[in-house]
């Protein structure tokens, strides 16, 4: 399946292109304060996945009960095939940082995230998959990042949402080979792909979700699809939204990469 991340500015194009879009990924937080009728309409027309941003699985201690309840309500309405969150923390005991930050790749953190992932999946009654993030920090740990992802997925018995753009960006900023990284993963865990164009700021690569997917990213996605039984590819975009024709063209590029069943 090939689809897009649902964003309100793309709504007209999405609703008028339902025959060309296999699936949609809903960002749970965008529906925490309402728009449930839109969600029900999306559920009628599309296969859905629900993606969370702020459950902060990497924070020690209990999950935020209020956020989890909001998330579960969105899941209940959307009835997705699976749900997803990030291998990250967005809050500490003191502060809500408002964005995804890296966790130390060690066994203790793998256990913490896996336990939180299981709790979310159990609470929502849906399978969960977890996504790798971009980070400009490299944190010390006793596991490599692929071994850490494998350990979390094994302990939680969950899948991996491989963000190929995040992998590419990290590989450029931290100077490692993305294919070596990829081939250290357990391929059977890779369920879904994210793709969006990267940006540059000086000598750094960044993830601003505002550019079309570049050719190097398509090449990497092709490698992932050859390596793992990927079930869905989601095209993301959160800023500088192009017109309907450009979105359709970009989706078609992904569909050629990942032929429809």
């Amino acid at each position, binding site marked *: 399946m090939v689809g897009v991340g649902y964003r309100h500015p793309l709504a007209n194009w999405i609703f008028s292109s339902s025959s060309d879009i296999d699936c949609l990924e809903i960002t749970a937080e965008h529906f925490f304060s309402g728009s449930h009728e839109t969600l029900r309409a999306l559920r009628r027309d599309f296969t859905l996945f629900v993606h969370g941003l702020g459950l902060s699985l990497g924070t020690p201690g209990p999950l935020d009960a209020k956020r989890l309840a909001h998330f579960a309500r969105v899941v209940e309405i959307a009835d997705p095939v699976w749900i997803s969150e990030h291998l990250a923390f967005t809050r*500490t*005991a003191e*502060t809500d940082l408002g*964005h995804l*930050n890296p966790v*130390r790749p060690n066994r203790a953190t793998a256990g913490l995230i896996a336990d939180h992932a299981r709790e979310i999946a159990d609470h929502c009654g849906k399978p969960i998959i977890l996504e790798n993030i971009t980070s*400009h920090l*490299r944190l*010390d740990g006793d596991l490599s990042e692929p071994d850490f992802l494998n350990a979390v997925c094994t302990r939680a018995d969950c899948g991996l949402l491989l963000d190929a753009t995040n992998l590419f960006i990290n590989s450029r900023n931290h100077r490692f080979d993305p294919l070596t990284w990829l081939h250290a993963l357990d391929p059977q865990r890779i369920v879904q792909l994210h793709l969006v164009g990267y940006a540059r700021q000086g000598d750094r690569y960044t993830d601003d979700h505002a550019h079309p997917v570049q050719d190097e990213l398509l090449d990497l996605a092709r490698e992932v699809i050859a390596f793992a039984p990927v079930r869905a590819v989601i095209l993301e975009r959160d800023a500088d939204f192009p017109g309907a024709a450009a979105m359709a063209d970009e989706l078609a590029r992904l569909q050629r990469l990942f032929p429809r069943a």
Partner: protein
Amino acid sequence: MNSPASNASSPALDFQTALGRLLTDGPLRDRFRANPLGALHVEPADQAALLALDPDDLEFQARILLRKRFVALTPLLPATLASLGEKAWPLFIEAARPQSPISATADALLFCAHLSQTRPKDLNRREWRRLEFSAASVRLRLHILWSSAALQILWRHGQGVREWLLRLG
């Protein structure tokens, strides 16, 4: 040189709490760059991980978080941001880098206060007053907007805020 012992009166932080502070407190990052273990009192087991943080990477990651906070101002201060154009982002960094995030409204008010000191002509006072009123608990407030020669009336009803602008003269 400072040492962790100099902070012995405060409890030792775990690594993630220390990282959270570093990512949300610009002056702390400056102190960390100068003297990592003097800036934060972390648990002994976490000192090596803290020392392994690259200050430039830390600053870049912190700017990513600041940028998220900046983008959240767009619906709150559209006129002010439009007036500032590309100057808005560096001005927001000046204002928000020393401040931990609380909410988008708090950031917007912080930014307005900063502009009132540094670039008062670019601050849309009508927007600022409306935002202040939204964050307060009073029912009615009147402001004279000298730059537009108008009386701004703000009134809270139920969950919302109504606004009228009466031209003076």
